[in-house]
């Protein structure tokens, strides 16, 4: 038979009939009810905890004095959210709970206790002297347990690893009475005050006058605890070391009179304050270089937000602390997806993402982009406790990237941006040079031809052909200038005319205008006007729609094999007008099919056979069609080793009644 002291819902071995128990100095057992077979054994001053890690048993022993000696995720009986099930009323402060003795049976492993069964309650009564004589280790047990609890409640990152000054002082019934001498000191406590030992010293003298009294009074006025409170450790009669102190009133009513103490936890915060100041300086610096910082919990609340975080999001610190950051995302699920991404990412590295957020404004919300470096924050046991991130606004950069047609999901480097800008500038220069060439060459030829007419150097039999050339090339030059004009209109989003445009007639007129270009390669254009008439009229801008077919047919002429036919046909599919321009020409590789509509893009083969192209024609076609809610796609089916049947297919929207 063994007796256990029910201490805050824990059972401590109090007395036992087992002669083996305590034989080697074991003088205390703690049993955590509800945790399965588990127990604390205080053996020769070294606390050992036994716990069952598997349902099948198999005890493992760890020395709690070793860092990390506790199993990850193990329940902490002192943590506010993990009051022992079956224990006393968890809503009440522990030092207010009644202590009682219970009888029970201890399962012994050798001279140690491996488990204990709860039994019936017995109310013990010991004198103060008996407590001192029989249970000196009880104070150690209390001090450590309560100090760890206080440390945990004070936000220490390693609550099981108390390195602060902890001591017990006899309770003075009234704050006006002198504090009783210190009766217990945790190792290292004296060092904080630059003394050999604190035992016997008055606790008050360790602080500037009145500080400890105020903390004690606060504990008496409150729920038995107070702090942390800022003060200093007195050394040589002067405040030297910045401290935070927390006090707890402990009472053990199992003794008569009740055994009462002040448990004091004094933490040297020199380093912490230094780190905190450094961190604050770093955050202030980050603000000056436009990098925002936040630290949020897993629920999305933001206990820490830098000034810039508030400015960028439009929310105050108080609002950010209370709300979930999920509302900052246009898609509320985006935050969870980001966290999932963080979980699968390398723990040691920040995850970089460009994220679209919402800024709160007077009139609602406005979107903005940030480039964020994010990571999961974990506690000492590796458990996720939140997310922190650095980010800078990237709206202008994203806008610029989009303007430059960058497809990259994130921000590109300055070097990449510069390369793109330079490439675009080169492309524009090339475009202007090509345009200059394309205009100059026919204009020079035109004037020279006209002079030949003037000098009567043109033979009569070729004169009609030469006049056709003059007229045709003049139209080509006009069309090129029109392309420029349409480019300007498109770039400026100018509204287009909306009139009925006869499709077949438009295409036939374009064919006639380009007729002179067919002679060199002996090409022909066949316009199936009957099929185009099935579509009838298009609704849109007649000049722009004409230019669509000018560019498409001009493109087909340039890249058709000699002595082939270009065909233009139409049909109605599901109410939509579909026009196809088909030629036998240069094969377009699958990888180029979509890019032929990109601004300035030309396949290497196209550049090799037509050096003066601008790469604007098909891009403009797509843009001009988009203004009419029409789409264009390209197919290239090989019809020989090096030639293909190229099909440009335009789908016009159904005409509204």
């Amino acid at each position, binding site marked *: 038979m063994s007796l256990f002291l029910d201490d805050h819902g824990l059972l401590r071995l109090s007395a036992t009939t087992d002669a083996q128990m305590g034989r080697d100095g074991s003088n205390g057992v703690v049993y955590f009810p509800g945790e399965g077979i588990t127990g604390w054994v205080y053996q020769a001053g070294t606390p050992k905890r036994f716990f069952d890690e598997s349902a099948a048993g198999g005890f493992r022993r760890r020395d709690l004095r070793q860092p990390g000696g506790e199993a990850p995720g193990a329940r902490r009986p002192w943590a506010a959210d993990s009051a022992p099930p079956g224990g006393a009323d968890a809503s009440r402060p522990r030092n207010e709970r009644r202590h009682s003795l219970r009888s029970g049976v201890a399962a012994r492993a050798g001279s140690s206790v491996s488990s204990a069964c709860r039994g019936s309650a017995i109310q013990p009564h010991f004198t103060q002297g008996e407590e001192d004589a029989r249970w000196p280790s009880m104070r150690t047990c209390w001090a450590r347990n309560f100090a760890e609890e206080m440390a945990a409640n004070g936000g220490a990152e390693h609550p099981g690893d108390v390195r602060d000054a902890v001591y017990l002082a006899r309770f003075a019934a009234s704050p006006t009475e002198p504090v009783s001498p210190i009766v217990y000191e945790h190792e290292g406590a004296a060092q904080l005050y630059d003394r050999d030992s604190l035992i016997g010293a008055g606790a008050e003298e360790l602080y500037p006058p009145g500080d400890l009294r105020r903390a004690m009074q606060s504990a008496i006025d409150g729920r038995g605890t107070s702090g942390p409170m800022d003060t200093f450790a007195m050394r040589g009669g002067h405040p030297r070391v910045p401290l935070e102190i927390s006090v707890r009133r402990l009472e053990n009513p199992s003794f008569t009179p009740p055994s009462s103490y002040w448990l004091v936890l004094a933490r040297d915060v020199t380093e912490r304050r230094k780190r905190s100041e450094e961190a604050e300086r770093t955050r202030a610096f980050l603000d000056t270089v436009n990098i925002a910082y936040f630290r949020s919990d897993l629920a999305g609340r933001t206990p820490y937000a830098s000034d810039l975080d508030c400015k960028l999001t439009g929310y105050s610190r108080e609002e950010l602390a209370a709300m979930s950051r999920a509302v900052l995302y246009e898609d509320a699920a985006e935050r969870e997806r980001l966290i999932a991404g963080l979980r699968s990412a390398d723990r040691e590295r920040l995850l970089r993402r460009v994220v679209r957020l919402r800024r709160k404004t007077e009139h609602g919300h406005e979107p903005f982009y940030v480039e964020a470096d994010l990571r999961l924050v974990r506690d000492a046991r590796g458990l996720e406790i939140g997310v922190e991130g650095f980010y800078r606004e990237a709206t202008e950069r994203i806008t610029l990237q989009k303007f430059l047609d960058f497809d990259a999901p994130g921000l590109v480097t300055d070097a990449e941006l510069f390369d793109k800008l330079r490439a675009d500038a080169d492309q524009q220069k090339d475009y202007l040079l090509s345009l200059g060439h394309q205009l100059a060459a026919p204009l*020079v030829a035109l004037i020279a*031809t006209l002079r030949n007419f003037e000098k009567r150097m043109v033979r009569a039999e070729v004169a009609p052909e030469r006049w056709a050339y003059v007229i045709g090339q003049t139209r080509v030059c006009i069309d090129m200038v029109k392309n420029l004009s349409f480019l300007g209109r498109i770039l400026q989003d100018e509204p287009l005319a909306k009139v009925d445009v006869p499709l077949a007639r438009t295409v036939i007129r374009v064919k006639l205008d380009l007729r002179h270009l067919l002679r060199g390669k002996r090409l022909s254009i066949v316009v199936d006007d009957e099929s185009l008439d099935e579509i009838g009229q298009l609704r849109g801008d007649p000049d722009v729609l004409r230019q669509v077919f000018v560019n498409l047919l001009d493109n087909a002429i340039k890249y058709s094999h000699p002595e082939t036919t270009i065909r233009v046909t139409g049909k109605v599919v599901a109410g939509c007008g579909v026009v196809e321009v088909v030629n036998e020409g240069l*094969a377009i590789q699958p990888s180029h099919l979509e890019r032929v509509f990109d601004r300035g893009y030309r396949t290497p083969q196209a550049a090799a*056979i037509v*050096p003066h192209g601008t790469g604007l024609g098909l891009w403009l076609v797509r843009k001009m069609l988009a203004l009419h809610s029409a789409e264009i796609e390209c197919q290239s089916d090989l019809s020989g080793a090096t030639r293909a049947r190229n099909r440009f297919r335009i789908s016009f929207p159904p005409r509204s009644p």
Partner: protein
Amino acid sequence: MMTHKSRRDPVLLIDDDIDDLMWLVERIEAMGFGFVCATNEAEARDRILAISEGRERYCLAVIDVMMATHSIEHVGMVDEKFFKSSKESGVRLCHYARVELGISAAELPIAVYTARVDEQARQQIGAIPDVRHFFRDGAEGEGSLDHHVAEVLQRSSGD
């Protein structure tokens, strides 16, 4: 290749858009000369090589600086990694004739022209011996391409 027979050595016209050179063709024909056209760099190299080997003779070569490198019939047969810039194809042809094959100005006078003011092309052509460079700007008279062509053809007529 487009040819026009004449008793005199013809003019070699190297341009991918002969339509734009028909005005010059008319003047060449008016002076009693014929012409042969090469419409891309590959074809022009064959002509120039034939001159070097004495298989063909021309009284003048007129070359566009910016010109197609391949014909549409052949471009698909060439790996695109071997494509060279079409912006300087005329310059490469001049270099090929004068430097690589050593065709002299007496064997083949060469006139190159650009339709735009291109300082880089001007410098590249200036580095090749005995090549006359013209801007095709529509001007006539002394210093213009057509004046130069007329001079060369006149000299050739007197030979």
